[in-house]
């Protein structure tokens, strides 16, 4: 029997706010345990939550970026559960009335529109470190760090529109890019800033009803989203082909073994007893407030891609690299802006080539990146201008850039100090050319006999003697003129 897989994704996006969702504790990763806590996020009796304005703004911005209907009124609910990661014994979330409904995103590679069901605001839970075992099972106890408790999240729920693991992966990648570019998330997958759960089910091809689904949790990388779904499809297929039934359950993806395993022994149906959070009033957003976010929306990655390739003439590879690194992108944007305003003869394409190529690889040899490099976009452009004006050769420009990256000195000061400006003055070059011709009479004879291609060798010698400073086309003319008259 042929099966079709039906996949939906829930993506948790940690919002890049200064403070937590409902209290003013700092929202930061990697602090000593339980230092970013207060009575509110510790769930102490009598402490009252108040929603962070930035959380509402960011949720709206995310919703607009993926074409959702922003709701003028949304309501917070309590999701009740017992687990030590949440000392209140409930999580504040949105249930019946989320902040965004009904959007969509278009996959580029897989050429498919994916429906977005909703986006809701919620708080993250704390972190447990299990003692005496790898995971919770078999552990002798757990240590609870509540720094992450009440850190703001938005959960973006897709329609079950994916049919392959590759589609799900592309969606996760695109979403990752969008939330970073609209400034709501730092996109750091290693730190769990984006986490994905996948609902996977199979049905015989042609059948309308969905099969029983399993929910796979703990997907923290693009690769794990793809692998976990692939594994889950295979697992369910084997069960169905064997005449069995898939159990509706939560499964955990183990990155080490690339397999999923059941999290809860019993099919213990969740009963979270949602009810409206009495401590928080509904979030009411006026059309003007929503519009404010719409106006402030930066250029989305998709539009950026189109602009780079059609207007600036960047290659697909350059576009991919420049969009894939936010710091590099900001750098490139600044440089490009300067190009336009300063009316330089350097092109955006040339600038991109240097940024993606040599600049990027030189930077990787240092501890700097495009966010904190000692070379400002202005300085990169003055270097490229020197090259463009023929004052230095491409090879020298490379060496100078390397020094600029290491020392933070300006292009001009390095070029001046090393005297490495390109020599195009024939007078200054003539003696070198003469010496080279004298030392290579055999080659000179060849050229006299019509093999002008041999001039390349002589050019190389002149370049070497001038330490790369001679201007190649000038040298070539001079050589041919000296020999052939």
């Amino acid at each position, binding site marked *: 029997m042929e099966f079709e897989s039906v996949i939906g994704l829930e993506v948790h996006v940690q919002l890049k*706010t*200064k*403070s937590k969702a409902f209290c*003013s*504790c*700092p*929202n930061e990763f990697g602090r*000593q*345990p*339980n*230092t*970013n*806590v*207060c*009575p509110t996020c*510790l769930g102490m009796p009598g402490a009252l939550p*108040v*929603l*962070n*304005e*930035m*959380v*509402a703004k960011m949720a709206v911005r995310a919703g607009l970026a993926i074409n959702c209907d922003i709701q003028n009124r949304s*309501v917070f609910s309590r999701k*009740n559960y*017992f*687990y*030590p990661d949440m000392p209140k014994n409930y999580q504040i979330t949105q249930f019946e009335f989320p902040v965004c409904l009904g959007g969509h995103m278009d996959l580029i590679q897989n050429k498919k529109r994916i429906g977005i069901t909703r986006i809701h605001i919620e708080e993250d839970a704390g972190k*447990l*470190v*299990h003692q005496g075992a790898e995971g*919770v*099972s078999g*552990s*002798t*106890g*757990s*240590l*609870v*760090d*509540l720094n992450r408790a009440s850190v703001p999240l938005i959960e973006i729920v897709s329609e079950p529109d994916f049919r392959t693991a590759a589609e799900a992966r592309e969606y996760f990648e695109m979403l990752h890019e969008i939330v970073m570019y609209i400034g709501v998330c730092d996109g750091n997958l290693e730190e769990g800033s984006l986490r994905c759960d996948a609902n996977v089910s199979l049905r015989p091809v042609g059948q309308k009803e969905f099969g029983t689904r399993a929910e796979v949790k703990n997907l923290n990388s693009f690769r794990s989203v793809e692998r976990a779904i692939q594994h889950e499809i295979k697992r369910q297929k084997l069960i169905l082909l064997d005449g069995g039934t898939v159990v509706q359950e939560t499964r955990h993806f183990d990155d080490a073994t690339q397999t999923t395993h059941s999290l809860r022994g019993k099919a213990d149906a969740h*009963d979270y*007893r949602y009810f*409206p959070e009495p401590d928080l*009033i*509904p*979030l*009411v*957003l006026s059309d003007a407030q929503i519009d404010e976010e719409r106006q402030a929306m930066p250029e989305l990655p998709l539009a950026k891609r189109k602009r780079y390739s059609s207007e600036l003439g960047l290659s697909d590879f350059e576009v991919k690299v420049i969009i894939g690194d936010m710091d590099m992108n900001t750098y490139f944007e600044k440089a490009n802006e300067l190009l336009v305003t300063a009316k330089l003869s350097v092109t955006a394409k040339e600038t991109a080539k240097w940024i993606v190529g040599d600049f990027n690889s030189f930077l990787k040899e240092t501890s700097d990146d495009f966010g904190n490099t000692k070379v400002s976009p202005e300085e990169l452009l003055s270097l490229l201008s020197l090259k463009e004006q023929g004052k230095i050769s491409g090879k020298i420009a490379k060496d100078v850039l390397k020094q600029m990256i290491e020392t933070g000195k300006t292009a001009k000061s390095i070029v001046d100090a090393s005297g490495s400006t390109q020599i195009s003055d024939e007078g200054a070059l003539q003696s070198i050319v003469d010496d080279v011709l004298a030392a290579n009479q055999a080659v000179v004879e060849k050229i006299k006999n019509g093999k002008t291609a041999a001039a390349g060798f002589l050019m190389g010698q002149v370049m070497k003697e001038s330490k790369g400073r001679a201007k190649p086309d000038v040298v070539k003319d001079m050589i041919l003129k000296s020999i052939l008259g």
Partner: protein
Amino acid sequence: MSIEQKDVEKVLKLSELNVSDEEKKELHGQMSRILGYMEKINELDLKDIEPTSYSNTVPTFLRKDEETRTSISLQNNAPHWENNAFGVPSILGG
């Protein structure tokens, strides 16, 4: 709408509460009376009334995104404190 003994059991389980049989009976009675009271609402004609989850209509108040660090002594509130973290017993029960 009436409540049955098994509903009481379920609520107790979800709430992680352990009570005696006698208390269960008492709770059953109390819960039935609460639901009975709510039944009165169903007797009203609510055709044109929007469902209400909040009785007050104060405008939305939002907090500025500013951080403050609170210093509170957590050790004193924790039965078990280890490596600057709250220690809890085995979650799945050994």
